């Protein structure tokens, strides 16, 4: 699926658009093999930008007018309750090539949500209408509400040209004023956002957005922000298109002098509360709680997501600004009905009895796979395969900055970590727990990714308990106590606890039980510490853990989450939280990391501001080299893919999709072009 330049009458080819840093992993060849195999190799970023500018935008209104619209909307137009289609669509609407075929209008798409904190389940399906979007393969950033853009050579200025004539769901035009309002008046408002979201804050300063003309906006950053387009395509990049000025300005003191009275009338305690209730934010429930809020989404809220809701109903947006290749206005599907299940098991029951049209969220655990496969006929669905974007299924983080000096010394010893790694029988774990669906792996971009690093990925994955014992003997753990457990130089037995959250990752508990048995054979005593998730986070934040496990990200998106390549993420790089604090606070907080870490931090900052993809790759390789040398984290096996179901009468759905928050599946597969066959 790709965007066509309509007027030019040719597909927007390989060089026509900017390349993302996030490359394809060999297996995500989903649709256009030719496109992927030749198109996604190292290509320069800036050359692409020039091509995008050349895209012509003239003369497609005639084509749009010839297109069709949903029967209900046509009836409304006939009754004079809605302007005709040509007036609702942009002059040059965004053309989407359907995944399989041109669809037919109609139908209600059913999907499930969990009872609590599941607003992102709606976001993933409906709310992905940013300035730019991902392509199907998670490799490239495509035009969306911005039909083209230019990036300055130093990657500090981004100029976006908006779709002319696109409209909010209430018919009000979407213009540069809305984008400027969203960033300058809303996101940069200190009362609403006491800290500016990290994405639009570079070198400690927030972005500046200026209106060039009605349909052109310029974003200026304080320093290079080469990854901005990719970030803009992720959910956290939706701010510029989230707030309609004509509606949301009513809830800002700057535009509404009478706001205090409105706040009182609404019975809330402050204007910021009122603003959030009315206009929402990227990922809070109230984004889907106000039926009056204008949006740019394909479907708009009819029955809101609130504490008492048992379902969320969304109906088509008559002003949606995308059409298919024959000029038919999208979306094809009339409504989306999100049923709210309190319990995941009852959601599963609905899935296998065919009462859900597409679902992967909440049901994609290994334990469910046999049940889902067995009931394919009865439920009349096919399986959807998710390609993990993570690198590692079970990353073990030994706390190298432990508060206890003796433990710290032990974990900081590289040979100790290497010995533990080759003391794990990975094949047994893969066979027993993952049904043979994986391979031994440490960390780093997945095999097939252009940045895949063999040493970082495969070193010390062989099982060799004798060698492990010899290594441990050599580094001073050569004495054992009565029960065969090695003693540390200070005479204490080698013992530590590994924290794991059984409710989130039941498979990791099983993995750890096996690892515990493997390590017992080389004289290491480990406790599988199953704890509640909030406690897990608290222990990590306080640096009070011995060791913790978590799936290791960065398999397909190494630039977006490099937590396992150096101490990057204060809630993720669990082998050295104090080092991450040092990094994120520019040396103000935390603990000073060793040289190799500091070098990697510097290199990553450099990579982040490097626009040229080849150069960026070269810098990242240096980071991978250093990370492989230092061997900080121990991995078990490559992340295993999840799965979901698609009802057989729902078409235009790719059956293989990346599974990621940056590519918020299934949103970038464009649910607006999903269609039902009778």
């Amino acid at each position, binding site marked *: 699926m790709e965007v066509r330049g309509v007027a030019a009458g040719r597909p927007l080819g390989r060089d026509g658009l900017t390349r993302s840093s996030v490359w394809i992993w060999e297996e995500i060849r989903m649709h256009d093999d030719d496109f992927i195999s030749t198109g996604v190799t190292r290509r320069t970023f800036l050359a692409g930008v020039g091509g995008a500018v050349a895209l012509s935008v003239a003369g497609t209104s005639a084509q749009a007018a010839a297109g069709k619209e949903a029967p209900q909307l046509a009836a409304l137009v006939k009754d004079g309750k809605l302007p005709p289609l040509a007036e609702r669509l942009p002059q040059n609407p965004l053309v989407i090539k359907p995944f399989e075929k041109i669809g037919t209008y109609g139908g209600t798409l059913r999907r499930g949500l969990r009872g609590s904190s599941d607003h992102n389940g709606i976001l993933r399906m409906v709310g992905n209408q940013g300035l730019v979007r991902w392509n199907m393969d998670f490799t490239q950033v495509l035009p969306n509400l911005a039909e083209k853009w230019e990036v300055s050579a130093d990657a500090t200025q981004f100029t976006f040209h908006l779709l002319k004539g696109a409209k909010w769901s209430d018919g009000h035009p979407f213009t540069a004023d809305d984008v400027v309002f969203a960033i300058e008046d809303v996101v940069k408002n200190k009362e609403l956002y006491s800290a500016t979201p990290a994405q639009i804050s570079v070198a400690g300063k927030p972005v500046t957005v200026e209106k060039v003309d009605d349909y052109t906006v310029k974003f200026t950053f304080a320093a290079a922000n080469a990854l901005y387009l990719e970030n803009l395509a992720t959910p956290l990049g939706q701010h510029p298109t989230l707030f309609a000025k004509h509606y949301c300005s009513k809830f800002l003191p700057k535009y509404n002098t009478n706001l205090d009275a409105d706040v009182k009338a609404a*019975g809330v305690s402050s204007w910021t509360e009122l603003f959030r209730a009315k206009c929402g934010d990227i990922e809070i429930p109230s984004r889907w709680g106000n039926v009056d809020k204008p949006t740019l989404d394909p479907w708009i809220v009819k029955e809101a997501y609130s*504490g008492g809701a048992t379902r969320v109903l969304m109906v088509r947006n008559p002003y949606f600004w995308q059409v298919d290749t024959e000029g038919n206005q999208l979306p094809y599907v009339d409504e989306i*009905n999100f049923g709210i299940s309190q319990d995941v098991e009852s959601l599963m*029951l609905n899935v296998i009895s065919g009462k859900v049209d597409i679902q992967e969220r909440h049901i994609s655990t290994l334990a469910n796979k046999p049940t889902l496969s067995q009931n394919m006929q009865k439920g009349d669905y096919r399986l959807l395969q998710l390609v993990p974007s993570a690198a590692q299924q079970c990353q073990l983080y030994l706390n190298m900055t432990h508060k206890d000096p003796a433990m710290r010394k032990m974990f900081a010893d590289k040979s100790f970590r290497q010995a533990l790694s080759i003391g794990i029988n990975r094949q047994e774990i893969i066979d027993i727990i993952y049904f043979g669906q994986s391979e031994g792996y440490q960390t780093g971009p997945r095999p097939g990714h252009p940045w895949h690093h063999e040493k970082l990925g495969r070193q010390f994955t062989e099982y060799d308990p004798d060698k492990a014992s010899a290594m441990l003997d050599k580094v001073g753990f050569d004495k054992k106590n009565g029960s065969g457990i090695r003693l540390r130089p200070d005479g204490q037995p080698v013992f530590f606890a590994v924290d794991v959250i059984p409710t989130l990752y039941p498979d990791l508990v099983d993995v750890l039980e096996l690892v515990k048995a493997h390590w017992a054979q080389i004289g290491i005593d480990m406790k599988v510490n199953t704890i509640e998730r909030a406690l897990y*986070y*608290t222990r990590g934040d306080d640096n009070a853990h011995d060791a913790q496990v978590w799936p290791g990200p960065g398999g397909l998106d190494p630039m977006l989450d490099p937590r396992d390549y150096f101490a990057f993420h204060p809630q993720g790089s669990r082998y050295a939280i104090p080092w991450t604090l040092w990094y994120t606070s520019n040396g103000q907080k935390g603990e000073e990391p060793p040289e190799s870490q500091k070098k990697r931090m510097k290199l990553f900052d450099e990579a982040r501001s490097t626009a040229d993809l080849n150069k960026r790759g070269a810098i990242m390789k240096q980071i991978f080299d250093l990370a492989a040398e230092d061997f900080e984290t121990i991995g078990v096996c490559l992340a295993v893919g999840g799965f979901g179901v698609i009802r057989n009468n729902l078409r235009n759905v790719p059956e293989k999709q990346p599974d990621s928050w940056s590519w918020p599946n299934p949103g970038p597969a464009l649910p607006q072009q999903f269609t039902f066959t009778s």
Partner: protein
Amino acid sequence: MLKFVVKRLFWMIPSLFAVSFLAFVLIQLPPGDFVTTYIATLASSNEVVDQNTAAQLRERFGLDQPMLVQYLKWIWGIVTRGDFGLSFEWQQPVSGLIWERMALTLVLALASLIATWALALPIGVYSAVKKYSIGDYAFTAFTFFGLSIPSFLLALVLMYVAAVEFGQDVGGLFSSQYETAPWSIGKMYDLLTHLWLPVAILAVSSTASLIRVMRANMLDELPKPYVTTARAKGLSEFRLLVKYPLRIALNPFISTIAWLLPNLISGSVVVAIVLNLPTAAPLLLQSLMAQDMYLAGAFVLLICALTLIGSLISDILLALVDPRIRLE
């Protein structure tokens, strides 16, 4: 009598304060707070919160203040304005969230209560009077089954059979076309067609246990001399049963009213979650899991108030029904 009621009502005030404080402390006891739980929940779907947002959320919700300050603010809002606070998760007033679900909760609780009593009382009496008859054995067998099958398991099995074998719409209390429709005859009928399953499931175990209690109570009373006297006076067997031993055997039922009221909210949590019922119980569990403090606190407070009121009511009723009991 009036003096007793006033005195009891007066004592409720300090007990409620004590309980509300205890509830607040208990809800805060688990490690972390709403924000950590929220981040962890999102992380389970591989979703992240902007790193600058977490601290900002704590500040907005006042979670960075000492617990005592948070408590006093909350209780002050309740006492002065009747304001139970805002649910962190939904950003909606807590009282609205709870009331929204109370009507259906009441319907379900009353329906299953009536079903339970209507079945359990006659069967219990029958079992006691016809002790060791075939009917008694049959009911005893049923009651032991009813007591030993966990109701959530029964719910899951029935749902599976209904959904997979018969293709019926299970879970929830309404079909999708009526879910948000205004009340009408059609909607009432739709509710009734959905209500029988949860009512049956909820009634099974409580019916079973009530039958046992009723049977045992009656067996205690039946051999007593006053029964023999009444029979000697020539009362018909039915009148005799209803007039004397049944009244006394009912005492334990009346004392259970004390926990019937709080059960409206907290009873049958698991069944309500499995069956996806729009009642208060799932919301209560959700608020506890998410550490949504004010919502959970309001629930606990409500449950306590209902327990206190319930025990008052059952005390008064006991005094009315059983002349041996004095309210002193």
